[in-house]
């Protein structure tokens, strides 16, 4: 049986005058209904590009999909016509962006923006669409929703604005919801509320949720599975529990070690040395090798393949087993 959404060996380049940057280098992953996949990585790792590639909202140019497939319900959406792809947006796959203030159009009321898709895509009349917008706003727990229908984005607080974004994404009952760093711009208490809201909605609506984040702490409570990205590749995939317990990739391990933890009080935090690679000049061999604490000569020459290191677990490290076993 095919997955609800599946990426197969996706390659994306950014072609600019300065040269070609290989931003995605063979990304493969999948998500199913009712499941939350977290895509984790530092900025420039390709996680947002992955999300945009799925949505089909990459800026082309400069972005070019070099190869690979994105299967939605078994169909390759990259092979579809632009019109057919557009039909999928919102109704099948929807997205919540990271900075709601800039992602919402400043000159239209939130009611108008939430109801826009309903009017345009479903031909609802204005009144009915606004009614539905109120329901959606209530669903994402915006207090006094009806009274705020005519307000503009800048009149909302950050958390409320993000709820508006979510309401807007939910308008057409998507089966997949991609949330791209939905809480980055928010303060910590609000972050948790938004995460809880997303988890709750996923549960209620039976959607697949792809959560894109750089924050391991955020995903722990929400995600079912995690895909860790580095330099345009998924370097490790695992379910959350296993990954936290026994990471199978040195980068993941370093990330985990850099989180302050109550149970390891007193120990100095570990910091990952070096900088993420320049995507125009990805080092040969394993792209992580210049920063890797357990790097070996072969890491400089051979690109490690993704190998299964357990049930539902993949790692793209030459020494995956050793990392997993804690022997490296």
């Amino acid at each position, binding site marked *: 049986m095919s997955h609800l959404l599946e990426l197969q060996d996706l390659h994306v380049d950014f072609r600019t005058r300065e040269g070609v940057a290989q931003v995605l280098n063979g990304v493969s992953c999948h998500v199913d209904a009712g499941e939350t996949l977290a895509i984790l990585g530092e900025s420039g790792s390709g996680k947002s590009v992955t999300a945009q590639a799925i949505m089909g*909202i990459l800026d082309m140019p400069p972005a070019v999909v070099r190869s690979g497939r994105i299967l939605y319900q078994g169909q390759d959406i990259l092979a579809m016509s632009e019109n057919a792809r*557009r039909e999928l*947006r919102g109704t099948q796959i929807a997205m919540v*962006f990271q900075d709601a203030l800039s*992602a919402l159009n400043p*000159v239209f009321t939130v009611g108008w923006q939430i109801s826009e*898709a309903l009017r345009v895509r479903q031909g609802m009349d204005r009144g009915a669409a606004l009614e539905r917008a109120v329901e959606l706003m209530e669903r994402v727990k915006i207090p006094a929703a009806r009274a705020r229908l005519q307000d503009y984005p800048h009149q909302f607080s950050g958390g409320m604005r993000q709820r508006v*974004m979510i309401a*807007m994404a939910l308008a*057409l009952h998507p089966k997949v919801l991609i949330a791209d760093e939905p809480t980055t711009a928010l303060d910590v208490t609000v972050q948790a509320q938004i995460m809880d809201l997303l988890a709750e909605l996923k549960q209620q609506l039976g959607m697949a949720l792809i959560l894109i984040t750089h924050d391991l702490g955020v995903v722990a409570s929400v995600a079912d599975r995690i895909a860790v990205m580095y330099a345009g590749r998924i370097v490790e995939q695992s379910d959350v529990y296993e990954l936290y317990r026994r990471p199978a990739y040195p980068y993941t391990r370093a990330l985990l070690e850099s989180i302050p933890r109550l149970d390891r009080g007193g120990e100095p935090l570990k910091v990952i040395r070096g900088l993420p690679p320049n995507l125009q000049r990805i080092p040969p061999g394993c792209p992580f090798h210049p920063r890797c604490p357990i790097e070996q000569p072969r890491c400089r020459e051979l690109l490690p393949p993704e190998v299964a290191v357990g049930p539902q677990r993949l790692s793209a490290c030459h020494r995956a087993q050793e990392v997993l076993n804690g022997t490296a």
Partner: protein
Amino acid sequence: MTAYLIRRLLQMMLTFVGATFIVYALMFSIASDPLQALAGDKPLNPSQRAQLTAQYHLDEPFIKQYGYYMKGLVTGKFGRAISGRQIADVMAEAWPRTLQLGLIALLIAIVLGISGGVYAGLRRGGAFDQTSLALTLVVIGTPIFVIGTVFQSVFAVELGWFRPSYAPELGIATYILPAIVLGLLSLATGMRLTRTSVAENLRSDYVRTASSKGLTRRRIVAVHVLRNSLIPVVTFLGTELGGLMSGAMVTEGIFNIPGIGGRLFQGIRLEDGPLVVTIVSLLILIYLVTSLLVDLLYAVLDPRIRHG
């Protein structure tokens, strides 16, 4: 909003009175001998001079002359221009022509400037974008007098598409060529501004949001991008109307439109204080009203201003 409007209107009135005073004072200070200016190269005989001096209060101090003028303005009696005609008649004939010219020029600038700018913004770096950039530079670098004369020679005299001069029997069509000339600079600037604004807005996050809603590109551009891109353009073009009115002077001269420009020119030449001040006051008034309208429109277009 009402309080804001009242405040603005009061400001306008003060500006208006102050401006008329300054213009009147300027006219008064440059006027050496309006009667001789009126007579041109011919000498003026003493009895005629005595009569006209008394009629126009020319021998009285500045503040009294200004007083007479303002009294006339308030009571709706503009008085006579030095050339003898009722200023009210001159205004009633000339203003509608200049207004029509200015508004058509503005319309041309708006329609072509915005549509051209949107097109160029959507296809940045394309042939149209490059050509329009080059032409814009030419337009900005060429005095309007030269553009007017060239357009007149080429499109009216050589090609015969238009009349070289004002022809009231053609109705509104007679303003088209002069309005193109007059509006060209605003058009060029407006087009570049729209292009930049559109290009910038196309890259903005909300466009991405809109396309993730599954909207067509056409709708995204026409509704989301255009509405945002127009904010700076409207502000610019709105304030241009005042500028176009004063720029009409040269265009009217070339195309012989009997509008306010020619009257103003004549008034300055004849040192005709009341005429010049009346024209300039009305120009100021138009300027004030259009800036008020632009500010209100700005608030309508950009809710952040409204609630800020």
